[in-house]
């Protein structure tokens, strides 16, 4: 098994873990972890599949992944802020108590 295949396999496993976590956990914090794990899986994959050009690593995927990480960090920060606000308003950090859309009046 060469390196690239190993990375792809790792990415697939991580992605699966992420999806599982996203579906199974109710707490928003865990859901956010799960999404970040999925994101990391994709970043690994992107670096892995873009093979080296002329011996040197292709810089483009590195740059893309770097941008992707920045976006993931800011999105996570935003999500956390939203979660905290939701906790302050409702006393819970889950979506479970949502009994159907439009229940407020």
């Amino acid at each position, binding site marked *: 098994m060469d390196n690239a295949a190993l990375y792809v396999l790792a990415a697939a496993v991580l992605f699966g873990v992420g999806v599982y976590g996203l579906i199974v956990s109710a707490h928003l914090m865990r859901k956010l972890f799960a999404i970040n794990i999925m994101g990391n899986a994709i970043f690994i994959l*992107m670096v892995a599949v873009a093979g080296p050009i002329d011996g040197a690593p292709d810089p483009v995927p590195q740059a893309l992944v770097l*941008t992707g990480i920045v976006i993931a960090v*800011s*999105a996570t920060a935003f999500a956390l802020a939203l979660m905290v606000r939701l906790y302050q308003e409702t006393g819970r950090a889950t979506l479970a108590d*949502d009994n159907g859309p439009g229940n407020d009046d």
Partner: protein
Amino acid sequence: MTTEALALIVFVPLLVAAGMVVLPRSWLGLLIRIGLLPLPFLLLIPTMEVVDNGAYRVVLAGHDSPLGIVWLLDPLSLLMLWLNVGITLLVSLHASFSFPPSDQPARRFWPLWLILFASMNALVLSADLFNIYVTLELVTLAAIGLIAVEGKPAALRAAMRYLLLALMASLLYLLGVGLIYGQTGVLDLYLIAEHLEPAWLTITALALMIVGLLIKSAIFPLHAWLPAAHGNAPGPVSAILSAMVVKVSVYIIWRLWFWTAGDWDLDSAATLMGILGGLAIVYGSVAALVQQRLKMIIAYSTVAQLGYLMLLFPLASTLAFQAASYHLVSHGMAKAAMFLAAANILRSVGSDRLSRLAGIDQRLPLDVFALALAGVSIMGLPPSGGFLAKWLFLEAAREQEAWGWLVLVAASGLLAAAYLFRVLAVMCLHPRRRLRSDRRRRAPNLASVAAILLAVGAIVAGFASAPVLDLVAAGLPPGLAP
């Protein structure tokens, strides 16, 4: 000249948004004007460019793709720019009353509003897959921030759910981008086609990207986040979400489908997309029919109306392209008008439950009028932009003897009529008790005027279609050129 104008169209609102955060609060009113009002005039320059030369490619800061930022201005992106600028400006007129610069929430609302505006402008111009990813994230995050801006629990929950799904959608999209780059080493939307063979891996990549975008554009059955988000957001935010934010994702799917994968044989996938659209129309309409709140009805109506945009894939002809684009325009105006009118009603009555709205037309005639006018367009009845779009869809279906789609488009107007007339009937009903007067906080009349202007726009679109249709015809994807 055009490069500078396009850069300003994106960066003026962005810089102003940054300014709003930094500069003292008393400047807010002025900054809003600086960020929005010059845009239509700036847009004239790219318009001239397109009229003269057809298309225009911008390489920002001198770096070509994949590392630089490349924009493509063509007739379709120009149409989207105009639509975005026009609708945002009219909705901003309403927002300047629901979020007056002197109030506290305005400081949170307006920067996000301008960021959303700028990032949609950048998104429709973007010509490479990764830029699309970045701008799409910006659009989503700004939109979600706006949903939550008032901090009501229902809105916060809706925003959170939207955020989780949107993040997942972005990851799917990004995964597709990664796979495509691994195959081709190219990210330019319009150059990938030359490097790409329809192998299973590339098709998977494309499918991943499209599924991600379908989530963001809330196409049935991936629509679950939309009704709560659009139904609980503040009025102007709902308006722009339904009118523009979901549409730009569909627009990107069109770009991928017809430009990037233009010469692939995607017939069965196209049929699948069309079926999703048909299901969206039926499901959204039926769901709208059983809602008890006005804004939820309008939100489900969006789920239904988005379905028409999917019919472009199976029909795939010049006429269908014009039809779908025209639907985009007229639905944008009509739906924004509806949400603004609903916001005024909500504000005045204190609730948008249908049971509380009997006889409301006596108190808020302008808003009910706007709602009804916009409804005509949504139902696809003449004379309205919605009718012309429907007519073009029908012609497109007939041209290809696609009788199933023809009947679907012709009959689906009845579903829209069912849920909209339900609302109008309630409003015409005599109130059982007099509406309590102590809660009479009449929305300022200019807020109603914004709704009326948009609704009238949707009706007038039924008479003056030539500029839009010609523009679309000039910007057809390579495979469809007449």
